[in-house]
Each structure stands twice: as C-alpha cells, then as structure tokens.
C-alpha cells in the first residue's frame, strides 16, 4: 500500500491524541506546554498534508496550507515565549510549577 494522505492524517491524529493526553494527565506546567506543542505540530502537519494532496480550487497555487503552517509555527513560538515567562515568574513566586497547586484564584 502506497503512502497517501490517510497515512499523514492518521499520524497527525496520533500526535494530537498524545498531545491531549499530555495536557490532561501531566501536572507540571512545562509538560503541559510540551503537550500543546505536540498538538500544534499535529495541526500544522494536517495543513501541509492537505496542501500536497488536496484538490483545491482550479488554477490556484496550492500554498495556502503551507502559509497556515507558517502562521502556526509563529503562534507556537509566541505562545512558548509568553508561557515560559509566566512559568518562570510563578516559579519565583511560589517555588513550584505544579499546575494543580495554582488555585489561589479559586474561591
């Protein structure tokens, strides 16, 4: 069986599921961030796979999916920078980045 669009879609579904598991089950804030990165990678991989295999509109170049991939990478970079700044600020404040303990706003 030749490798086709389905293979890429299944792979990115598996990556997305792993990212969700990491986001839900991990307690460390940095581990949660890594789960989000996995999820974003899965989404970008889907976009790029569709830009290669999709039929799209006739007469149009098919780079739209790759442009969305670039935007996803930029957003992931922005998100990681802000998240780590916040995580380090929290660590200075409380000496812990366990997400289960960060409930001081809960009443």
């Amino acid at each position, binding site marked *: 069986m030749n490798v086709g669009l389905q293979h*890429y879609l299944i*792979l990115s579904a*598996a990556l997305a599921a792993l990212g969700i598991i990491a986001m839900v089950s991990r307690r460390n804030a940095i581990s949660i*961030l890594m789960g989000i990165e996995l999820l974003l990678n899965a989404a*970008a991989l889907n976009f790029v796979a569709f830009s290669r295999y999709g039929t799209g509109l006739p007469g149009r170049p098919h780079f739209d999916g790759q442009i969305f991939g670039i935007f996803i990478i930029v957003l992931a*970079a922005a998100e990681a920078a802000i998240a780590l700044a916040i*995580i380090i600020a929290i660590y200075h404040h409380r000496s812990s980045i366990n997400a289960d303990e960060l409930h001081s706003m809960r009443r």
Partner: protein
Amino acid sequence: MTAADVFFWIFASMALLPAMMVVFARNLLYSAFSLLFTLAGVAGLYALLGADFLSVTQVLVYIGGILVLILFGVMFTQRVYDLKAEAMSFKRRRAAALGLGVFAALAATVFAVDWPQAPREVQPTSAPIGNLLLSQYLLPFEMISVLLLVVLIGAVVVGKKEVQEE
C-alpha cells in the same frame, strides 16, 4: 515500496515514538529531549510533502528556538531532585481514555472519507509563499508582526517585574 515511502515510515516513527516518550517519560528532561526528535521527524515529513521552506522554518524556529526555551525552562525550574519526582497524575487513566477516544474519532473520520489520492507535483515554495504573504495574506502577516511585538514586550514585562520585587 518507493524510496519516498521508506522515508515516510522512517520520519513517522521518528515523530511518533519519541512523542510517546514526551507524554509518558518520568524524567522531565527526557521528555524535553524526546520532543527534539519528534520535531525533527515532523520537519522531515514537511520536506517529504514538498514544503521545503516550512521544513527549514520548523528546524530553525521549533528546534532552534522553542525547544531551547523549553529546555531552559526545565532546567531553570526543576531542582535536580525533583526531576524524577514528576509523577503521573492519578487522572492518568481517564486522560488515556480521552486521548484514545479522540484518536478513534479522528481515525474513523479518516477511514470514512474518500480522500484524493494523487499528490500534486512538487515545486519550489519559497517564492510563491513570499508573494502570497505580501499580497493575499498581507493583513494576517501584519497582524502577526504586531503580535510578535506584543509578545516581545509582554515577555520582558513579565520577567522584569520579578526582579523589581526582589
């Protein structure tokens, strides 16, 4: 099986197996280093899909930037003795069930739909992407530039406040 298929399986296992390590490793540092291989595998898949510019961007931004930031965060916030203490949450079974459910739903959709089979021809991507970014996608491009500026200032402000308080 063509050479491209062989490379697909190599890159796919390179992305998927370390991704499991990222999720299930007990040591946070191992997770972070496994993420390196996952990101590199995805970059290889981009190249295989004919997205050369995106593949290089993935290596530069993800591996060169985000991963280094994450490693910095891991080493900065973990004392040596709690690196191994990152225990799995008691919610782990429910999380695995949720992940498997999501995967089953997505896989069922993938198998239910009749996808187009023929890939398009591979062509150079940098020039068309640059043209699109400055014509059709000009507004998102400018907005994301502003977003990056906001992030730059925001990260500095969040980091700076701590120093003043001490």
